[in-house]
């Protein structure tokens, strides 16, 4: 039980360093168990954007924190993909360049996981196979229309 958790932890840890490097174009990321009480202790997140000095997570910018969180999410998904994943504007803090990196990630992972993403960002929309538009033609009443199909218009 303890060994099984430790194995999975090491896999996510290594995945995280991997996904972080892919999304940030370098740098490094790590996960550390707070103490030897593996099954009950907390987990510390350590992150260093490329070229910068290692500092606490709180000093990172809004976008760097958002992208680190996304890297961790994908690190977990890489180890154990869920059948589907629903994401509500998780790329809100990212600038356009980072949104495009995120969108590329979505495309790669969509082979193993179905993604439903609520978004305002063009980069995320461009990665989608299908688009639903939500509107309130009649005030207060939501209506949905299909906007784009895979390989179509």
């Amino acid at each position, binding site marked *: 039980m303890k060994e099984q958790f430790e194995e999975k932890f090491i896999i996510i840890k290594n995945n995280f360093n991997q996904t972080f490097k892919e999304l940030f174009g370098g740098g490094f990321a790590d996960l550390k168990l707070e103490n030897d009480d593996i099954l009950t202790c907390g987990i510390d997140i350590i992150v260093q954007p490329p070229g910068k000095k290692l500092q606490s997570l709180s000093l990172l910018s809004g976008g760097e924190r958002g992208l680190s969180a996304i890297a961790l999410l994908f690190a977990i998904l890489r180890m154990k993909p869920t059948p589907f994943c629903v994401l509500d504007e998780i790329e809100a803090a990212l600038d356009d360049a980072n949104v495009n990196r995120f969108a590329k990630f979505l495309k790669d992972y969509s082979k193993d996981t*179905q993604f439903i993403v609520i978004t305002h960002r063009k980069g995320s929309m461009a990665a989608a196979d299908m688009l639903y538009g939500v*509107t309130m033609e009649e005030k207060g009443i939501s209506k949905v229309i299909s906007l784009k199909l895979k390989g179509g218009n």
Partner: protein
Amino acid sequence: MYLKRLEIKGFKSFADKVDLEFDKGITAIVGPNGSGKSNIYDSIKWVLGEQSAKTLRGSKMDDIIFAGTESRKGLGCAEVSLTIDNSKKMFPYDYSEITVTRRLYKSGESEYLINNTQCRLKDITELFMDTGIGTDGYSLIGQGKIEEILSSKSEDRRMLFEEAA
């Protein structure tokens, strides 16, 4: 085990029935502020068994029933149905797809159905156990919630890892 269909009627701003079909791959949901996108997210959480009104942005559970507008009366019932592919028989049913339905009446009465057969909420949460589908874990990330994965309360993150492990 991908999502095939989501039907929403009477849930939050969905006074008129909305029927969404999903395919494998990536589906984007777009629209102006306040149009109902996060309400779709909430409906998925709710039909999968979410019991906290606060998580659904309400103060009591019946806040999720369509309350009416300046020109329309409120409704007496909210209903959401989620259909999931079962072609690999990951669920203990002989059907090629599983439909989970949840209803809440203004009276406070609730109904739960699996493939149109009445059941308890417990049956729905047990159905999804160990599939990676559910209200815990990391398959549903709500608006403004992505940073929680970095939470300084490392106990929060442990839940995530245990779900994954």
